[in-house]
C-alpha cells in the first residue's frame, strides 16, 4: 500500500478481509520510504490472498513458525538463545499473549526456516500447528 497517512485508516485491507469473512489473528506494519508493507496472520490464507489480489493489492505468502512459550520472564530469551547457538537470524516476529491458556504465542520469520524447525524440535520447544494458530 502507499505510504500515506490515509492508506491504513481507509482500512482497505481490513474491510476487504472483513467482507470475505476473514479474521485477522496478528498484524504488523513495516515501511520503506516509498510504501508500507502490511503483514497479516489470518485464519484463511488462501482466501485472504485471493480477495486481496482481486482488489489489486500485491500479495505475497511467506512461511512463518509459531512457537508457544510459557508467559513468564525468559520465555522469549529461551528461543532466541537457541537461534543464537545455531546462527539463525530472526527477520521479524509477532508476539501475543494467548487469552485462554497461560501461554504466549510468538510467530517468527527466520532466514533459515528448515534449520530453525530442526533446532527448535531438538530443544523440545513446542512448534504450533497451522490450525492452532488460525483458531487462537
Amino acid at each position: 500500500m502507499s505510504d500515506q497517512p490515509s492508506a491504513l485508516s481507509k482500512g482497505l485491507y481490513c474491510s476487504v478481509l472483513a467482507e470475505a469473512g476473514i479474521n485477522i489473528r496478528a498484524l504488523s506494519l513495516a515501511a520503506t520510504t516509498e510504501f508500507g508493507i502490511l503483514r497479516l496472520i489470518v485464519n484463511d490464507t488462501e482466501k485472504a490472498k485471493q480477495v486481496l489480489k482481486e482488489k489489486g493489492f500485491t500479495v505475497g505468502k511467506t512461511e512463518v513458525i509459531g512457537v508457544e512459550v510459557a508467559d513468564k520472564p525468559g520465555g522469549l530469551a529461551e528461543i532466541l538463545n537457541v537461534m543464537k547457538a545455531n546462527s539463525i537470524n530472526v527477520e521479524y516476529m509477532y508476539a501475543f499473549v494467548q487469552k485462554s491458556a497461560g501461554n504466549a504465542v510468538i510467530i517468527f520469520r527466520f532466514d533459515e526456516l528448515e534449520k530453525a524447525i530442526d533446532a527448535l524440535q531438538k530443544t523440545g520447544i513446542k512448534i504450533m500447528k497451522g490450525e492452532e494458530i488460525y483458531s487462537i
Partner: protein
Amino acid sequence: MIWNEEFETLPREALEALQLKRLKNLVERVYTAVPYYRKKMDEAGVKPADIKALADLRKLPFTTKEDLRLNYPFGLFAVPFEKVVRIHASSGTTGKPTVVGYTKNDIDAWAELMARTLSAGGAHAGDVVHNAYGYGLFTGGLGAHYGAERLGAAVIPISGGNSKRQIMLMQDFGSTVLMCTPSYALNLADVMKEMGVDPKSLKLRVGLFGAEPWSENMRQEIEARLNIKAIDIFGLSEVMGPGVASECIEEKHGLHVFEDYFIPEIVNPETFEPVPHGELGELVFTTLTKEAFPVIRYRTKDLSRIIDAPCSCGRTFHRMQRITGRTDDMLIIRGVNVFPSQIEHVLMSIEGVEPHYQIIVDRQASLDIMEVQVEVSETIFSDEIKVLEKLGRRIEREIKDLLGVSCKIKLVEPRTIQRSEGKAKRVIDNRKL
C-alpha cells in the same frame, strides 16, 4: 514471405536507377508546386536540374519539424486540395500538430508498404490481425488496417484501450497477429496474467510493434510473456506512417527500409554531414513517390545506423538499426549522454523486474539528479524490506556500470506508474534548462 518479390529483391543498380528517376521527378514536382520548398532551394542555390545522380541529394536543404509548423496546416501540400483524400496529424503536444495529407495513390502505396511489413513479419492472408494501434488522426491504426486488408487478412479494428475486452476478443475471435506499441503489448500481458488467461491458450503467433523505441530485452520479455515472435516496425507520420521500414522474421536484426519509396540517410546530429554506412547518427528520409505531402531530407531526430550487409531473407533493401533513441530524448546527466532505452535494457535484464518504469530528472544545487522509479511486481515483492533494498542497490549498481552515471532507484507500489495505451512517457525532466 516477400510480398512484392519484384521490387523487394531488385538488384542494387536497378534499385538506384529507380530511386534516381523518382528523385528527379520529386524535386521537379516540389519545386513547381510548393513555394516554400522553391524558396528554400533557391536560397541554397540548387535547381531541379542540378539533381543528376543520387549523391546530389545532399545538395538539397533539410526539412525539419519547424518547417512543417511554419506551414501549418496545408502549406507544404504539393497537390491541389481536391486531390487530398485523407488527413492525419500528430498529437501536437508541443504546440500545433503536424499535419500530413494523402492522395488516393498515396493511400494505395501505403497499403502496399504495410502489406510488405506484415509479410516480412510473418503474417499472411487468412490471418486474424488484432489491430490495437490507435485509430484516428494517429497514422498507426489506419495504416496497419489498410495493409492488413491488402494482405488478405481479417482485421479487428479494436484500437487502443479496454484491455480486458481486447483479451476476451483475442480468445473469441482467434487473433493470430497483434499490432500495437510494445509498451501496450506488455500491458496486455499484465492484464492477461491478472485475468488468469494463459497466452499459450491464444492463437497469437506474431506481434508487429512500433511507434516508440524499445530494447532487445523488451523484445525477449514480450516474446516470453505473450508466447509470440515480436517484430520491430518503423514509420513516422511526416514520412508516411508505419510501413517505412520493417524487420524480417528471418533475421529480426535491423529494419529493411522500403528504398523504392524512401531514401534513408544518416547524418551527424551536430554537423548534419552525411556519415558512412555503419555509423550512428540522425536518420533522415526523402519520400520518393508521395504526391500530397512529399518531404525532402526530413530530419527525424531518431538515432540509427545503416546496415548494408546482405540479409538472409533475400531482400536487397538496406537495413536501419532499430531506433536506440532520439536526439531530443537524449538526456544529458552530468555531461553523460543517457537514453531511456539503456535504462530499460538494464531493468529488463534483472529477473522479476517489471518493465514499468519512469525516469525523473531534477537539478539540485547545479547537480543533475536522476531517479528511476521501478514498480515492485509480485515476483520481486518480499515482506522483508532488506530484500527490496538489496534489489534497489543492484539496479543502481548495474545502471552505474552501464552508463557511468549514478542514479537513485525508487521502488514504488505496483500499478502506480501511469500505463500507456499508446506511446509510453518515460522521462520527466524537471530541470529548467
